[in-house]
């Protein structure tokens, strides 16, 4: 069977505008989360990881006219451009474009927006990115709640295996907007302090904005040192509740099982888990139950939400990129915000950066609508 790899990659976030800088900051324990008191976004103080619009605009003006693009479009284009440029792949008929986002340009619905409402259609966002780079194929947008970013990797792999494309560029992103903040706040899911995934004092989510992009390819040639092979993947629904995670972690349990089966691996062959860990009481408990049922309590695990917040449609792709660099460097990064376990099952949450020989990792995500996605990766150096 054809093999698929995640190759060149970029992260554009408050911790830096390229993967190396961002990962370097994570390795130093630096978080992009800050406290904000901005009534134009939320009537009460909140904590989030945001990127200055001015900074993005200045960077974008080097490659285009920023006034013609929304903040999210500028972020996605800047991020994707770095991946396209370094990969040096001509954008012909065999190259696909996937965009992962939950809300896209939702801020254009605000009455003082400079852009027409039509820009809120995700297919318009797709066209904007496609036309900027002159992709030959129509952009495909995936909008599947908080699993979108990691599901996009599955989708790229599946289209490559069906022979539709040889290479697929994925770009993903969401903004911290009034729309999103007010919604999560109405669920009383936001923490005004930096989030503490899996910790006994966890209070809830912080939101974050990033753009993250990768190249998924069927070619084992010309891979960067952090490239990984995609060994197995699956998405399973909880069939339980649209906004609350399953008490038994059913969908997550099944998705990891199915991904392991495809990878032809057992749970104890996973060296590291990059989990979802939103720091809400229910989500983290659900994950603990699912990983316990899988017999994975001892596998070192972190949530990266303490560095970036929950970056919605980008989170799964962002966290996969960090995972790739983590196994390339053979370092387990600390799960920022965690100090004492606050779930009912044992978990091996990474307290401090720890050197360890790493060959494989599992990325998981769970989201509204009861969806759960798991993907297993292996480094390409050995």
């Amino acid at each position, binding site marked *: 069977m054809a093999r698929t790899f995640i190759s060149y990659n970029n992260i554009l976030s408050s911790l830096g505008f390229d993967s190396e800088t961002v990962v370097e900051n994570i390795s130093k324990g630096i978080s992009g989360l800050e406290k904000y008191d901005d009534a134009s976004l939320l009537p009460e103080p909140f904590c989030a990881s945001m990127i200055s619009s001015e900074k993005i605009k200045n960077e974008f003006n080097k490659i285009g006219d920023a006034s013609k693009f929304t903040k999210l479009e500028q972020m996605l284009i800047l991020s994707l451009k770095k991946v396209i440029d370094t990969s040096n792949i001509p954008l012909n008929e065999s190259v696909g474009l996937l965009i992962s986002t939950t809300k896209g340009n939702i801020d254009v619905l605000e009455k003082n927006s400079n852009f027409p409402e039509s820009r809120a259609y995700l297919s318009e966002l797709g066209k904007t990115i496609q036309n900027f780079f002159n992709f030959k194929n129509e952009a495909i947008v995936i909008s599947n709640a908080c699993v979108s970013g990691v599901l996009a990797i599955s989708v790229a792999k599946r289209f490559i295996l069906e022979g539709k494309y040889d290479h697929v560029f994925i770009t993903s992103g969401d903004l911290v907007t009034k729309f999103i903040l007010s919604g999560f706040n109405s*669920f009383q899911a936001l923490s005004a302090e930096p989030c503490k995934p899996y910790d006994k004092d966890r209070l809830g989510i912080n939101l974050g904005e990033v753009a993250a992009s990768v190249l998924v390819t069927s070619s084992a040639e010309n891979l960067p040192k952090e490239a990984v092979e995609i060994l197995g993947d699956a998405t399973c629904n909880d069939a339980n509740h*649209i906004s609350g995670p399953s008490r038994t972690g059913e969908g997550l349990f099944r998705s990891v099982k199915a991904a392991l089966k495809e990878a032809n691996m057992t749970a104890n062959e996973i060296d590291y888990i990059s989990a979802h860990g939103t720091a809400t009481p229910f989500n983290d408990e659900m994950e603990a139950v699912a990983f316990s049922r899988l017999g994975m309590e001892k596998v070192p695990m972190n949530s990266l939400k303490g560095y970036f917040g929950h970056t919605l449609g980008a989170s799964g792709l962002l966290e996969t990129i960090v995972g790739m660099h983590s196994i390339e460097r053979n370092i387990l990064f600390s799960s920022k915000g965690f100090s004492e376990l606050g779930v009912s099952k044992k978990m091996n949450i990474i307290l401090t950066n720890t050197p360890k020989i790493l060959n494989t990792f599992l990325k998981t995500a769970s989201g509204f609508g009861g969806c759960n996605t798991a993907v297993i990766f292996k480094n390409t150096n050995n």
Partner: protein
Amino acid sequence: MINGNVIFSDENEEFSTFIKNAYKFLKTDYPKFFKMDNLSKLAFLAADVLLKSENLNEEENNIALIFSNKASSLNTDRKHQASIENEAEYFPSPAVFVYTLPNICLGEISIKRKLYSENSFFIFDRFNAEHLQLYANNLLRSEKTEKVLCGWVDFDENSYEAFLYLVEKEGKIEHNTEEINRLYNIL
């Protein structure tokens, strides 16, 4: 309309009346239906009509859902935006906000029919038979699923449309883009 035969029609142009009449006609009897937003009501009822005749297991079923549309959840997004636009009338509601994701309708269908299966929601500019077909083929070929419920469920300000079809390893109509487009165009 199922397999080309009209099973229910209603001249009522108002969506809320139409869908309620269809719900009654189909004897759906599922109180959660009334909490759903319009996109979910449309997707749920369309899926229920098809899955009803499938003799599903009460415990669990492995039927993947691959849905797509153009307007994502914009119809409900506008409603949430209206609830936060003005400081004086700032009342965001979790019951509305949860539906500001297009894939929530996949969750609704999965809950009713106990589908612990693959889910994905794509946004296309127009109905895109090719990508649905390829993706369904991959899920069947890799044995991630036994059947796939595919289609297009779109709800926007002034229009709505639902077209779903079930794909399995054996059947009368071949699973290719020509046939999918032919069926879509009957609508």
